[in-house]
């Protein structure tokens, strides 16, 4: 292979046998360097406040245990902007450089784990999927509305999970192929039909945006209904299963509660046409019942 060897950026590590004495000296040197570094950071923060290429964030703070944070407040952070910076990047920067107690959920940084749905400048968005440059300043970051705040930007997700799990969110069929190496057949069209509904990442943005879900705690909510749609429309489950699924959806607090506000569809980071799915289920339910009249 003709790969070229990279030029090492040389520093004091050139000599191999490092005496402990030298180590100590190095450590001292580094310590000094560190202090200088710290100094620089403070200055940088100061400069950041005044510079153009910083973003001004106003972040909701609350902690039931910390006296100063028991009464919720907004903290200001000035974060130096880098090309491609997202809300999540900015929050992480603020946490690592200004206040290590700034708390928010996050993991994948790529819009797939669904941890970081936040209320940013008045709408539900995924922190990691929202470019700072698309927002006007000051960027207001709050926890999801209509959910109990645990701390700072972290909300209690239990209710959302309960709703998700209330719709028998698992595949059920009575007719599996016999062979353990034989798959069930499914047409491309049918897969296409359920495709969007399978993309949900359980971020709860939709649920948080829905006024009905805010008012009626028992309402299944758009995400759970979508989850049920994913199975009800999957031809592999068969007709009698579909019947059963529709029965679940038809409860008083099922699909009928939806008032087609569309906000769920608008905020869904995975572009799932939630309202459309809910409406289709309402029609399916009606059709299904007309058969029995």
């Amino acid at each position, binding site marked *: 292979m003709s790969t070229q060897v990279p030029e090492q950026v040389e520093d004091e590590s050139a000599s191999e046998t490092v005496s402990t004495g030298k180590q100590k000296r190095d450590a001292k040197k580094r310590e000094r360097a560190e202090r200088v570094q710290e100094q620089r950071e403070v200055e940088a923060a100061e400069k950041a406040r005044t510079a153009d290429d910083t973003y001004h964030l106003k972040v909701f703070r609350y902690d039931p245990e910390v006296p100063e944070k028991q009464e919720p407040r907004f903290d200001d952070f000035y974060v130096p902007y880098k090309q491609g910076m997202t809300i999540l990047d900015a929050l992480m920067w603020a946490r690592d450089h200004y206040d290590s107690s700034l708390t928010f959920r996050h993991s994948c940084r790529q819009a797939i784990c669904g941890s970081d749905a936040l209320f940013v400048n*008045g709408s539900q968005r995924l922190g990691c999927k929202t470019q700072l440059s698309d927002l006007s300043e000051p960027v207001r970051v709050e926890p999801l509305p*209509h959910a*109990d705040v645990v701390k700072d930007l972290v909300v209690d997700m239990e209710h959302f999970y309960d709703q998700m799990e209330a719709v028998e969110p698992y595949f059920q069929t009575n007719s599996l192929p016999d062979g353990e190496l034989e798959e069930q057949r499914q047409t491309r069209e049918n897969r296409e039909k359920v495709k969007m509904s399978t993309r949900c990442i359980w971020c709860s943005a939709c649920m948080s945006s829905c*006024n009905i879900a805010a008012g009626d705690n028992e309402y299944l909510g758009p995400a759970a209904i979508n989850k049920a749609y994913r199975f009800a429309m999957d031809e592999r489950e068969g007709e009698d299963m579909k019947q059963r699924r529709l029965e679940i959806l038809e409860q008083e607090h099922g699909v009928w509660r939806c008032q*087609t506000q*569309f906000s769920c569809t*608008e905020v869904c980071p995975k572009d799932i046409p939630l309202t459309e799915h809910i*409406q289709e289920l309402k*029609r399916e339910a009606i059709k299904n019942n007309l058969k029995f009249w």
Partner: protein
Amino acid sequence: MSQSYNRGLIEDFSRWREFSAGMWAWIFHKFTGWVLVGYLFTHIAVLSTALSGATEYTTTIQGLESLLIVRILEVGLLAVAVFHILNGLRLLFVDLGVGLEAQDKSFYASLILTGVIVVASVPTFLAGVTI
């Protein structure tokens, strides 16, 4: 759960600023619907003066109709009704799964159309009012 901060009503009431088209449509539809039922009840109440006799009825109605304020309220009622009808149609289409992508546009269209119809009917509605 118990220790978490409850944002309660403050949260709900300040959220309208962040509403999007579909949510406004919902609010307006709700509001207009309620006004309409309210009106339905008053309307029947007023009409039932007919039970006490023909003259009674005619004087009540004409008395009311001659008041500017009533006429203006009627224009308001018209606006409310027209919006409720138009948005109601929009909702019926949404229920049929038609035009979901244009839901925001159809809402704006309902608003504009309501405005136009109401403005156009003002002369008829205010005709013959004695000030």
